[in-house]
């Protein structure tokens, strides 16, 4: 390869925004991820409601957990799509040769998926309150902090492991197998914090700190190691 340095014209916008705009536009035109996630998580909510048939008090105890697990399962279906899309027409190889840093590609995917999963949660939350007959007893505005923190933890690791498992055999199967064990502490934090808010019996502060710490640690680790994953031969 020619080692000569080619001077690049500076991009009109930061690479992160270019990648993000591309991902959002693709999703806007196809709506694959959003539709599949919405329907999937709706199914989970209905199935759990039928399976447990909870009373109002019980549903306060369990619905935080069900919402988190429903989001988790739904996000896995969408995250697999996020990178499979790049495999068509050798897009991933083109990305590897592009002058843009790998971390901006990764972060844009994370932000895009974060927006999709959050959108699903916003649509799902009222339905949830209706189906489970929910009246939160704690400070419900804290949910606006807990759910984004938990979703970020899910999406940052999920996008990273989806990029990792895209390079293996049976890739769609491998993502949950790698993601779930690593995600367990964040899931615990998310479930405990939202249950604390719904029942109003405990203080969710400690769990919110745990989620924030988890987010910072794994976002840093993913950004540092993503180039290694992308360029793995």
């Amino acid at each position, binding site marked *: 390869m020619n080692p000569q340095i080619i001077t690049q014209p500076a991009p009109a916008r930061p690479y992160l925004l270019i990648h993000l705009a591309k991902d959002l536009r693709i999703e806007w035109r196809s709506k694959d991820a959003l539709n599949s996630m919405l329907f999937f998580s709706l199914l989970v909510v209905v199935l759990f409601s039928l399976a447990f048939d909870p009373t109002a008090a019980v549903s306060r105890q369990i619905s935080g957990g069900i919402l988190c697990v429903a989001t988790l399962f739904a996000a896995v279906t969408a995250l697999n799509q996020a990178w499979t899309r790049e495999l068509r027409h050798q897009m991933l190889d083109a990305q590897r040769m592009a002058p843009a840093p790998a971390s901006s590609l990764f972060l844009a995917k994370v932000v895009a998926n974060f927006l999709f999963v959050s959108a699903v949660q916003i649509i799902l939350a009222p339905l949830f309150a209706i189906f489970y007959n929910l009246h939160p007893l704690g400070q419900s505005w804290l949910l606006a902090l807990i759910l984004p923190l938990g979703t970020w933890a899910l999406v940052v690791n999920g996008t990273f492991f989806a990029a990792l498992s895209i390079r293996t055999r049976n890739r769609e199967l491998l993502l949950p*197998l790698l993601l779930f*064990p690593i995600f367990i*502490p964040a899931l615990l934090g998310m479930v405990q914090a939202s249950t604390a808010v719904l029942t109003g019996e405990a203080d969710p502060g400690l769990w919110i700190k745990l989620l924030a710490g*988890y987010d910072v640690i794994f976002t840093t*680790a993913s950004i540092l190691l993503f180039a*290694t*994953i992308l360029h793995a031969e």
Partner: protein
Amino acid sequence: MKTFRWIWLALTIGLLGYGFYQAMYVVPTEATMGEIQRIFYYHLPSWFAMSLFFAVNLGASITYLACRRTNPLRALSADALALASAEIGVVFCTVGLVTGSLWARPVWGIWWTWDERLTSTLVLWLIYVSYILLRHFADGEQMRTLAAVLAIFGYIDVPIVYFSTRWWRTQHPGPVIGGGGLDPSMWPGILWNAAAFLAWGTFVVGLRYGIERRRQLAEQRASLHALEATLELTK
């Protein structure tokens, strides 16, 4: 090398025998729990061995990532060591979980509880099983890089898992190391068995490492043959 291996094996068997003798006959019976407490002399040493081999796995994975461009031969041996230590670490983790469960049944009255240490160990076990699964699902240099990255992620997760489950709940007896909850007459049972488990684990890791190295060399020879065959064709 071969003589050394036989000496090491003899030493390991000797240590295992002596550790068994110490744990079963020499160390006094515990006052409240009785004979069942003796399983502890296998429970705690398996955690020592597990911690050591998972740390070796992390070190070997980082070495692989650091050397894979500059020194491919060292990187390959680091990768073989990472695989061997992860597998043996999972074996010791399983031994620890099973002995703990056998102890809990008569003492707590239950096989399992979602306590801080039990949960975090189970999550640790899950993480390393997923590491081994990843190594089965991919091939070649690509798989080695991906596995090394996953090993680093898994190791970062361990303290977070520990603290999160600790805030969640706790039931396990307090830590023996540093807590000072153990009678001095019981230490020989632990230390001899710990030495025996470490010797045995190192022996098996050595064997597994040798197998993996031979497999890597065979793979390289096969690809070299394939390359030579294409040269013959183009000549």
